[in-house]
């Protein structure tokens, strides 16, 4: 049976993986926006419509060779370990193999479009193996063609004598048709990002398109969003509607365009779910008889440990408790009798 420390460890690891993937997204954005010769940055979550009529929003979109070619990057903070789910994720990449339109106002379509899947080093080997086996299928042949690549990233600790930790992107599978990018990524050590990415640029965005783990959204709410509503350092509480929280959180989602109703709904749901979980863990509560209103204490959490550690511990405890309850089934109701005190008389005293 899975133990609480294992759950906690995985929970904290997922938090870090998502956070670092956001940093990688900021790094790639910074790479293209600083050097348009590599590729001209189009947008983050830019809406493209493929010729099948489906709307697609890659994490990063760019064009190169005078806007004749397109490049999309899809970032995955975590890929499923379950074979079936992993296959489903990879099959979904097919939507980017269909020619897309609406790259820029002046560029409606491109001659070719390349796709790069960026994943965590822990997931790279499994993903590449699965891609290799899937590429044999005719409908997944794009995975074997030029123009599809898988990159991974790592934050490397310095070796003796070297200066600092570094964030690097390196190729693990395939190639794009962008010669400049290929030259850069295929050099020994891959693409080395500027130090700024590890220092301040990583705080540019807080989310990527992919849904974050619950503990991540809860931490962002506790640290960056809910404290902005507090007006007094005194320990009190305030009532707030979920829409107000969403409005404040909006700027943390990377976007160069106004969201459509569906996207807004998705992101609002992330916040709703995180609030529900916080409530379940006893850190806030719902306002009675008022839908979508929450009572938030000041401060919502006071601890001398990192927040994600505390949240993960609480979540693991709640999860295991839930498991135990399920196994045991519904607990039988038991009759509880108050214990007799010295003042109480024995029932026989009343018989005479």
């Amino acid at each position, binding site marked *: 049976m899975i133990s609480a420390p294992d759950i906690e460890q995985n929970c904290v690891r997922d938090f870090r993986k998502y956070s670092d993937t956001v940093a990688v997204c900021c790094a790639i954005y910074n790479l293209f926006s600083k050097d348009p010769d590599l590729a001209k940055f189009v947008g983050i979550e830019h809406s493209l419509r493929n010729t099948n009529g489906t709307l697609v929003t890659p994490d990063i979109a760019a064009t190169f060779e005078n806007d004749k070619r397109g490049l999309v990057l899809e970032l995955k903070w975590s890929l499923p370990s379950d074979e079936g789910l992993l296959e489903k994720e990879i099959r979904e990449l097919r939507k980017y193999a269909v020619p897309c339109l609406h790259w820029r106002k002046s560029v409606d379509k491109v001659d070719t479009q390349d796709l790069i899947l960026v994943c965590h080093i822990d997931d790279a080997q499994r993903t590449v193996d699965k891609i290799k086996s899937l590429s044999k299928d005719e409908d997944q042949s794009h995975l074997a063609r030029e123009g599809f690549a898988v990159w991974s990233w790592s934050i490397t600790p310095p070796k003796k004598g070297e200066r600092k930790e570094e964030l690097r992107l390196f190729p693990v599978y395939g190639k794009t048709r962008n010669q400049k990018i290929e030259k850069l990524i295929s050099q020994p050590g891959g693409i080395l990002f500027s130090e700024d990415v590890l220092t301040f640029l990583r705080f540019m965005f807080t989310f990527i398109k992919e849904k974050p783990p619950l503990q991540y959204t809860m931490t962002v709410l506790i640290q960056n969003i809910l404290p*902005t509503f507090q007006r*007094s350092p005194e320990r009190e509480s305030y009532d707030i509607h979920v829409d107000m929280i969403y409005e404040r959180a909006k700027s943390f989602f990377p976007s160069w365009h106004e969201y459509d109703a569906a996207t807004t709904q998705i992101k609002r749901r992330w916040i709703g779910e995180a609030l529900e979980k916080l409530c379940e863990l006893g850190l806030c509560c719902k306002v009675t008889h008022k839908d979508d209103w929450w009572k938030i204490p000041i401060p919502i959490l006071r*601890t001398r440990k990192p927040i994600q550690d505390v949240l993960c511990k609480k979540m693991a405890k709640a999860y295991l408790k839930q498991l135990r309850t399920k196994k045991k089934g519904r607990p039988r109701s038991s009759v509880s009798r108050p214990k007799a005190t010295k003042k109480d008389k024995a029932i026989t005293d009343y018989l005479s």
Partner: protein
Amino acid sequence: MTAQIADRLSMNLFFEKMYTTRQKRPPLKALILLTELEPESLRDFVQKRKKLAKIYNINLNKLEGDLYSLNVKRLLWKDHVSGNAILDASCKGVWVVYCNEKSRFARFGLERLFTRLYPDISRLYINYLQIRTLLDNIKNAYHGQTTLTYFILKREPRSADARLRSGTFQLWEENAEEELRSQSKNYRLTIHIVNFEVKDGNDAILLQGQISRRGVCKLRFGSFAMFHENVVLKAIGLGLKWKGFYGHRERLVKDGEILLRPFRISYSSQFDEKQLYRLTEKISKNYLCSIIHGGNPYFAANVCDYFDGSSFGVTALGNNVTITPITKGSHQAAWKLTNRLQEILGDGEIASIMG
């Protein structure tokens, strides 16, 4: 002792007379505070905070213009500390609280009161380089020579040399400056208190004073008018300059573009794992933190000020600590966090990062 002060003139004369004669007495403390509050609202702000209202009793009387007399009584354990002070609010955005009572009242009565009124009132935090700049300004203003006579600092060896010890270090010496410089070569220093003397060309003492890390200037001997002009006002000038530096740094979204205004504390040597693990451990005690990387030897964290609600991204890489205000990011919170980081890692050089 300040009961006989009725206006600014009588205050100047009172302190002038008191500190230009050699006598054993508590030094005059000038506590510099940054706030946009009106002094009249001080009592209300104390009353609003339940914990403060329980232990403090405050009386504020207007003397003349922006000058107030302040009486503070604090319950300390089962005892009381009480005393009087003069509150000068003549500089916009700054209060100077003058107090010539014993240090017990100044520390536990006055300083603690204003520290606990954060973020409505914030302290002035200055590091070694800023104290150095201030001393240079004082020296120029007096046209004399400034010498350090005493200092207290916290030191941490830069290397793993077993002969170098960490901990608090204090030194009384006629020319303590040399020792301070040599200490800074082998250790990371966090300066707490500096005593200094200003002498004229004939070696006569013009001023004996003290500057502390938390914005308290003390006058032990010398003209009060000169002390006010050349020390207090210079410290206020420095404070307002740094207030401007820390202000307006929140993360902004303008036409879809995200603007960050980070700043950094630079050190002359790189951090090692031990220091960064200590940073992880200590920063969590004062701030609500989520630590992304705990110091291997890269430190990245998101920290939130409990009282103010400001949040910051903090990273330590190589020999730089980078602070990126995220939401709210008030100048008070940014300044306090920078000070706390320097208390843990040692004083460094603070500068903006051009994005």
